């Protein structure tokens, strides 16, 4: 119908973006919260692993699973093939466990909750109702507002501090809780699936995570159920020198559907912090999972001090026929990003999609991409990657497309675009393509362009400020990916794009 009915949504930059650009001059989530924390001693060893397991009141099978991972990890070495350069990490100089003291016993009402913890949620923009729920106030979850239908699980340093909308989800048969709770309450599901997509031995960081993961989220969608609301996990690293090792396990049983959102922030610190997460997704026959991430960990300052080292293993296994998975990521934060959300297309006619925006400004380094492993017949995958480099940053797309001999008539389409802002940054594209049958088709398109002065002048002649102009042009460049995000995230992502490119011109 008429033009402009889509005016207020998605299509380019909205006013909030512009305001955000003007008002926020540095990393917005850079405050820290002065909360009494309970730490385990620095370093990783058997005692620490046992302690983490004990703090989470885990059963013995879990403890030994962790210890086995630790043994493996000790024999492994850090991978060095990525195009990232950072000082040697002393893995024994990190805290592997920290949690707010007030969480030792669940509070009964808001008055008992550490006010600083509540203040943190407020700063994160989580509404009061959900603050109560997250803070674990009894009964709060039973009276949801009914308007904002997103269930939130918040992970503060090492510990999940609460999950909203639990009862409503329960009615639908959906399990959404912290992984530590799932280990206790749903051991059969956890035993069956944990480590089945990302094996303990998978890679250095995933193995470390298997040994020391402290918490994370667990989702189970029963057969035929369309999850009644979007599920969201909010990760925040607060404590200094703390590594965050969260573990997420999502199981979409036959014919089910879920959309899952993940957001991350951390305070500004001069010293780098470690983050090594593992996300496993199991997609059974005819099921569909959408997993969206807005990663905004502290990227370090303009001179490259501090920031999060982000080593993440994310993988989805399309086990059944016609299973579908879609990864969408907006990576604006972290000093170092090492992340390749992957799809194993095992079932016939299964589909994998990967949409990515990766922004590297100042001294940030990003090495990110995906793997599409086609094992089943008639499988399809689509990769759309938008890399933006500014300042002196290096941004690498690294992707693998693999067609197994059995994966007859499979298709892949890859579009990989890089945008450069300024003349001191770099963009790199490293595709690995392996096709072992002659009926499959793989297409790869790549472009590299610059935000050119003519575009900026054109925007400015029409009245936009320089940073607003950059944000507009970059959001246009990212449009294909922004459109793949759920609405709420799309807005946030647009703002983040604008904020993270601040100071990249002029």
């Amino acid at each position, binding site marked *: 119908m008429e*033009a*402009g009915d889509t005016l207020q949504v998605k*299509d380019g930059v909205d006013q909030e973006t512009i305001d955000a650009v003007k008002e926020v001059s540095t990393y917005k989530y850079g405050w820290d919260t002065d909360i009494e924390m309970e730490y385990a001693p620095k370093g990783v060893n058997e005692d620490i692993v046992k302690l983490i397991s004990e703090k989470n009141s885990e059963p013995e099978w879990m403890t030994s699973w962790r210890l086995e991972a630790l043994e493996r990890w000790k024999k492994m070495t850090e991978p060095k093939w990525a195009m990232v350069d950072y000082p040697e990490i002393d893995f024994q100089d990190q805290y592997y466990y920290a949690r707010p003291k007030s969480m030792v016993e669940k509070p009964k009402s808001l008055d008992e909750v550490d006010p600083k913890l509540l203040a943190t949620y407020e700063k994160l923009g989580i509404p009061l109702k959900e603050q109560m729920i997250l803070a674990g106030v009894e009964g709060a979850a039973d009276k949801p507002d009914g308007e904002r239908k997103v269930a939130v699980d918040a992970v503060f340093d090492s510990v999940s501090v609460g999950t909203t909308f639990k009862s409503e989800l329960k009615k639908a048969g959906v399990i959404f809780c912290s992984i530590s709770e799932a280990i206790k309450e749903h051991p059969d599901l956890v035993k069956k699936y944990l480590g089945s997509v990302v094996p303990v031995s998978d890679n250095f960081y995933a193995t470390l995570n298997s040994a020391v993961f402290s918490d994370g989220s667990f989702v189970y969608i029963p057969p035929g159920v369309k999850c009644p609301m979007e599920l969201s996990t909010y990760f925040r690293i607060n404590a200094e020198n703390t590594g965050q090792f969260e573990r997420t396990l999502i199981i979409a049983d036959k014919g089910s559907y879920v959309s899952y959102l993940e957001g991350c922030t951390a305070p500004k610190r001069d010293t780098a912090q470690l983050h090594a997460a593992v996300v496993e997704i199991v997609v059974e026959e005819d099921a569909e999972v959408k997993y969206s991430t807005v990663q905004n960990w502290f990227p370090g300052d303009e001179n490259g001090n501090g920031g999060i080292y982000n080593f993440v293993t994310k993988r989805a296994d399309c086990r059944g026929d016609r299973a579908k998975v879609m990864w969408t990521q907006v990576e604006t934060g972290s000093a170092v990003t090492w992340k390749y959300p992957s799809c194993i297309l095992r079932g016939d006619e299964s589909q994998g999609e990967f949409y990515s925006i990766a922004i590297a400004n100042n001294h940030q380094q990003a090495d990110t991409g995906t793997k599409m492993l086609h094992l089943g017949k008639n499988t399809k995958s689509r990769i759309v990657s938008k890399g933006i480099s500014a300042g002196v940053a290096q941004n690498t797309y690294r992707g693998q497309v693999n067609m197994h001999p059995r994966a007859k008539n499979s298709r892949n389409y890859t579009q990989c675009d890089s945008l450069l802002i300024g003349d001191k940054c770099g963009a790199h594209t490293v595709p690995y393509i392996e096709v072992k049958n002659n009926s499959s088709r793989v297409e790869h398109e790549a472009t590299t362009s610059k935000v050119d*002065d003519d575009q900026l002048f054109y925007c*400015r002649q*029409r*009245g936009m400020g320089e940073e607003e102009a950059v944000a507009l042009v970059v959001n*246009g460049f*990212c449009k294909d990916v922004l459109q793949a995000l759920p609405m709420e995230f799309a807005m946030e992502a647009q703002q983040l794009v604008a904020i993270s490119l601040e100071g990249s011109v002029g």
Partner: protein
Amino acid sequence: MLKINNLHVSLEDEDKEILKGVDLTVDAGTVHAIMGPNGSGKSTLSYVLSGKEGYNVTDGSVELNGDNIMDLEPEERAALGLFLAFQYPIEIPGVGNMTFLRTALNAQRKARGEDEISATDFLRLVREKAATLKIDSDMLKRPVNVGFSGGEKKRNEILQMAMLEPKICILDETDSGLDVDAMKLVANGVNALRNEGRGFLVITHYQRLLDHIKPDVVHIMADGKIIKSGGPELALEVENNGYSDLLDEAS
């Protein structure tokens, strides 16, 4: 309204003077045309007025309604009401034409301390203006200038001009690349914007545009200077005799 006084401009990269003392005053409500051979500095003048980088203003001044604008950023000049219709409109992939217009309009309003336009008012306005330029809803949704034909690009410039309601409109060879029908459409769009509060500076190679946009004053520019000014008949003289007589006269 627009007062250009002894403007000297050279290129930033090389020591080459392009404008060698331009004097020109455009009063509100009037249309001035600048004609001249290739390389005379016409387009440079339009870029310098709108604040494009790459030029050094070595002498002279430019005032817009009493404000000296040469030290202002391009967006500040735009907010004061200066608009340049580009000879080669720029493509911005992925950014909807309408989003671009609304972002620009609101940026200017904000800079002037005005409220943002509401979504409904904006929509009403843009549809109304687009209709007179025969711009359909599809063109409003497409990314800015991407895949537009030559005629569409120029009409789009005029649409932006109509939406932003500038005080001084500079048209840089808006007729280039247009067929007769497209040129009429563009000219009608410009004529509809003529009013007593608004001035126009129309840069063109050819007299034919001036058949449709009737100028009050015609200036001939050559080698970085205005060598002759006169009424509309001056354009006809150029059309019939070319620039050589005028150039000889000036030297």
